């Protein structure tokens, strides 16, 4: 137990001297890194704009209130498009994520040496790139519009769904699989009767969870031209129509809250 002497008595302390010293140097290094980063940011900032910020914020607030409620009539189609991007994107992603997950899970993969690394690479690369970047790329390839948004959301979601799903597959109860195998079932029958019933609740939960996230993401895809309500947001921002911007932000906020509520309800019903 670490202690130090004080007037001849031993007093307890939390760490030994060398531990404290290492920690102290760790903190010193972290603070130095942080200060360096902050100086970089500070050097790239026009501080006049920052001191002026409260006035600008007040100005924008004045322009944005009250929201232009009658503009809502034009938002029906974009909201429908946004919903479609999120839902169809999620469905396509699930179709692609299921085989990927089965190939990535240690207990179901056909080959740990060849197939599993490829599946893991698919998961990592689709997960680490944001849907906006995928949208940017797809717009360059297949042109702007809702379809590019659907594909962007689908690609981005594969990694997320497949990762959660393959973790669920790896955690299944092997006893049930063995029982089905013992009846003389083929590989596919083992899959359908032994593995799928065990991961079905997890699968439904993942699908709804990802749908919720995709609603959020699809609201902003329009900023780069991939359809949905973001197109209207970007158009309104470009012409500085702040009352329209505030209305769109309110709509997006509502969409996010509703989708979160739906997903929480459905997941509560499943689990």
């Amino acid at each position, binding site marked *: 137990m670490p202690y130090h002497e004080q007037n001849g008595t031993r007093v307890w302390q939390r760490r030994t001297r060398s531990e404290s010293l290492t920690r102290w140097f760790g903190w010193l290094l*972290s603070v130095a*890194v*942080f200060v360096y*980063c*902050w100086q*970089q*940011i*500070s050097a*790239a*900032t*026009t501080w006049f*704009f*920052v001191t002026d*910020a409260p006035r*600008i*914020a007040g100005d*924008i607030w004045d322009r944005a209130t009250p929201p232009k409620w009658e503009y809502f009539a034009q938002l029906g189609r974009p909201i*429908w*498009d946004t*919903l*479609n991007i999120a*839902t*169809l994107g999620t469905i396509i992603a699930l179709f692609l994520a299921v085989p990927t997950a089965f190939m990535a899970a240690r207990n179901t993969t056909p080959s740990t040496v060849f197939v599993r690394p490829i599946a893991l690479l698919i998961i*990592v*690369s689709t*997960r*680490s*790139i*944001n849907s*906006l*970047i995928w949208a*940017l*790329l797809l717009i*360059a*390839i*297949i*042109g702007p*519009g*809702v*379809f590019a948004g*659907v594909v962007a959301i689908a690609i981005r979601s594969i990694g997320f769904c497949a990762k959660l799903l393959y973790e669920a597959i790896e955690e299944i109860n092997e006893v049930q699989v063995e029982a089905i195998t013992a009846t003389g079932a083929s590989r596919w029958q083992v899959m359908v*009767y032994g593995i799928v*019933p065990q991961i*079905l609740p997890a699968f*439904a939960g993942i699908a709804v969870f990802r749908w919720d996230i995709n609603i*959020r*993401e699809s*609201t*902003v895809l329009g*900023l*780069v031209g991939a359809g949905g309500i973001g197109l209207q947001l970007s158009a309104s*921002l470009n012409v500085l129509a702040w009352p329209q911007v505030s209305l769109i*932000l309110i709509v*997006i*906020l509502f969409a*996010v*809250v509703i989708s979160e509520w739906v997903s929480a309800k459905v997941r509560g019903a499943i689990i």
Partner: protein
Amino acid sequence: MRSAISPELNALIGQKWQRPPLVKRAWLRWMLMIGFAAYLIASFMTIDVNWTRVYEGLDRGAAFILAFTSPDFTSRAGDIWDGMVESIVMTVAASVVGIAISIPIGLGAARNIAPMPVYLICRGIVAVSRALQEIIVAILLVAIFGFGPLAGFLTLSFATIGFLSKLLAEDIESMDRVQAEAIKASGARWMQWINYGVQPQVMPRLIGLSMYRIDINFRESAILGLVGAGGIGATLNTAFDRYEYDTAAAILIIIIGIVMALEYLSGIIRARVQ
């Protein structure tokens, strides 16, 4: 022993076994299926895909995929380096500030240690921060503070607060009360109580979550440049606009590499603290 079997099971004897469906009530199952099919048809009808445009674009898609086999790190090396450094600087600064602010807010948002008014205020902050997406916050902050990494730094800090405070508060709420009580019984002041009774219990998870958030912050910092908030996003956007797929591929490979390295690092750190 026939009588001990429940009547439902008795009725099933002699019938062919069927897999139980996911949704038990038949009418609800059919309603969901029909509703879903109707929705799918409606959505397919309203998406107008320009198939000729898609077909023409396939060449460019192939060109992009081929670009991954020969990424061009050199011809725009200066821009890529500047953008990456800016992204990393924003990530580090925003993570430090965000984590530092989210600890007191997380303490305030835990029902078992915070009084009601503080709890409501902190939960309100968390809800606002979680409801607004990074990119929208970034647009507003760029409009207010001007272009540059400061807007990105503030955006990421703000987003970190919502994420980390919520999860930290949930962790504190599910902690072991007994240990905290024992510290309190020894006559500890409030700060000592937090420091010796609460903090050791939530520290491993806090470190794990912080690592995860640094990872997310880096990924997000890659897109903030699209709206002028600094980072690699601006370079990436330019590369796409100029159809320089080999440069874009190089940037994407660097992003994937850094994310993988961060994930590996956070795995090691989480294994050590737990």
